[in-house]
């Protein structure tokens, strides 16, 4: 995209402090079920689960947006694919999560390969729009699955088994699993972006011509990133289906994809914790504001504008600057 050249470059790496921040966030998330025993109850944990699942998706999207310069406006389609894979299998009597996960990820990978091969021909705003197109196709296709609830969605009556155990039928089990998945995703994505693969991806964002003249296939690197991000999102979809016991096509709507983009930009793209913080902030602020007034968007809207105007590099950029001022 034309904006990429002067896009907010990743702020100077501060790997140690970023690790500390992430550590604090994960520790806080791990403490929530204990806090919930005293105040907030299952509401608090369910909110946290929702925020964590969104954070997983946002982190996977940041791999595309922040590092690959590929702004996907159809990323929620992969969540929906994962969620429906789980929903349909659970309805059809396949309860084992170790079977559901590979199928969901495989389905997402196949769709990512097929659609990605087309999308990668374009760049910039065209890329945004063509990913939107594929996302909408998934959305409408899921809405026409009459035997699986069509547009109303599908209530899932039984939780998946985890290696024959009922671990995922308990709220604690789901919570711990989602938290592990989040930490795993965070680590995996940072492993990827720190590797040669990640460097090529970022270089291709800055200057695709130079990268391809160096003998790398930009197309292949980008497509690989697209498939990986899609598979991670599908895992989040499976987790969502397990947590909510309900899936619906709206999981894959363009509004949801838009929310995800906003989360990533809000947090700060291509930073270690931007997508994570962006997703958590988005959910928390939405919850806090909507508890004050039903017209909370009157506050949230201007807040987003202010962040866009004054917080270059998103929340993480803001945090870094505050920290920078102090030191």
């Amino acid at each position, binding site marked *: 995209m034309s904006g990429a050249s002067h896009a907010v470059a990743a702020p100077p790496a501060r790997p140690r402090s970023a690790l500390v921040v992430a550590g604090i966030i994960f520790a806080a998330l791990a403490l929530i079920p204990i806090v919930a025993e005293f105040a907030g109850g299952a509401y608090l944990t369910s909110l946290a689960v929702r925020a964590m699942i969104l954070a997983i998706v946002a982190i996977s999207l940041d791999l595309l947006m922040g590092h690959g310069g590929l702004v996907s406006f159809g990323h929620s389609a992969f969540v929906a694919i994962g969620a429906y894979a789980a929903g349909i299998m659970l309805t059809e009597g396949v309860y084992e999560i170790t079977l559901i996960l590979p199928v969901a990820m495989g389905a997402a990978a196949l769709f990512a390969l097929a659609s990605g091969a087309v999308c990668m021909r374009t760049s910039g705003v065209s890329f945004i729009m063509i990913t939107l197109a594929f996302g909408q196709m998934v959305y409408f296709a899921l809405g026409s699955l009459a035997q699986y609830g069509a547009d109303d969605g599908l209530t899932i009556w039984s939780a998946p088994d985890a290696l024959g155990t009922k671990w995922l039928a308990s709220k604690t089990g789901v919570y711990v699993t989602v938290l592990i998945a989040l930490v795993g995703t965070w680590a995996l994505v940072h492993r990827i972006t720190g590797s040669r693969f990640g460097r090529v991806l970022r270089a291709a964002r800055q200057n695709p011509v130079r990268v391809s003249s160096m003998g790398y296939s930009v197309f292949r690197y980008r497509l690989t990133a697209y498939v990986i991000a899609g598979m991670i999102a599908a895992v989040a979809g499976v987790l969502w289906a397990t947590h909510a016991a309900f899936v619906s096509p709206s999981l894959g709507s363009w509004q949801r994809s838009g929310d995800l983009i906003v989360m990533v930009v809000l947090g700060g793209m291509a930073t270690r914790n931007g997508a994570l913080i962006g997703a958590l902030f988005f959910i928390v602020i939405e919850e806090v504001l909507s508890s004050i007034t039903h017209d909370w968007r*009157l506050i949230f809207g201007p807040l987003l504008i202010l*962040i866009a105007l004054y917080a*270059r590099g998103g929340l993480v950029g803001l945090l870094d600057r505050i920290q920078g001022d102090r030191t």
Partner: protein
Amino acid sequence: MSTTLILIQILNGLQLGVILFLIAAGLTLVFGVMGFINLAHGVQYMVGAYLAYWGYGVTGSFVLALLMALPLALLMGLVLEFLVFRHLYDRDHLSQVLATFGVILFLNQLAKVIFGPASLSVPPPEFLDFSFTLIDGLLYPAYRIAVIVAGLLVALILWLVITRTRVGMLIRAGATNPDMVSALGVNVRQLFLIVFGFGAMLAGFAGVMAAPIFSVEPGMGDNLLIVAFVVIIIGGAGSIRGAFVAALLVGLVDTLGRTLVTDGLRLVMDASSANQIGPAIASMLIYVLMALVLFWRPEGLFAARAAR
């Protein structure tokens, strides 16, 4: 499927296309000239419709409401430009997305707070309150003809402005090579302000014209915004000609698709499956069209800018 029905559907498709063009025209200018992604464009369409509703309530005349709505829509665009957008021109697209997303949330909610959540309606002007008979028993309201005519007029005026005037020349130049334009000493800020205000007014005009046909409600512009983006991407960003052709194309494909796909499927499968799958495919058609166009011509049909 009779020929008469197809002809009527072509007329309906054209009319949808014209409304899409009115929205897409402003969007493609703002995007093409300034490289600015304005998600709030759809909400400016909604503002136009609400202004029409409010103006009609105050004056009791649609024409007066229209005349009041246009400058107010322009003013609204200028205020937004001054408060928000001008600070984002040299920023990356995603900051623009974030900020204009915030504008959408705010204005949609504000509309709900002020006018309530229910759908509202505005009657067409009285002198257009008559109909043409298309076939026995089916009338075509004169107002819809007026919308088509107004859309074509706007297209013509835009074309004249862009090809025949100094501002138009600057806009064309700005769409092709913005750096060169400012290097030549043109006040780009001012040009942007003009384009932006004008774009907002066009969206507002589309909203006013659509109010008597559709219903006025919060969030009414959100889905149309996506379709308008589809139009400008198919047409090629920054190209008025492209927006015009693509808008008509999308209008026709969508309208005819909804009639033909299900009927076509019924020829090859049983009726209930066709009813099941047909509407889903019909809804996908414009996205398939866009994907195909982007696949063969990544810059759109009439790319204004050589390389983006």
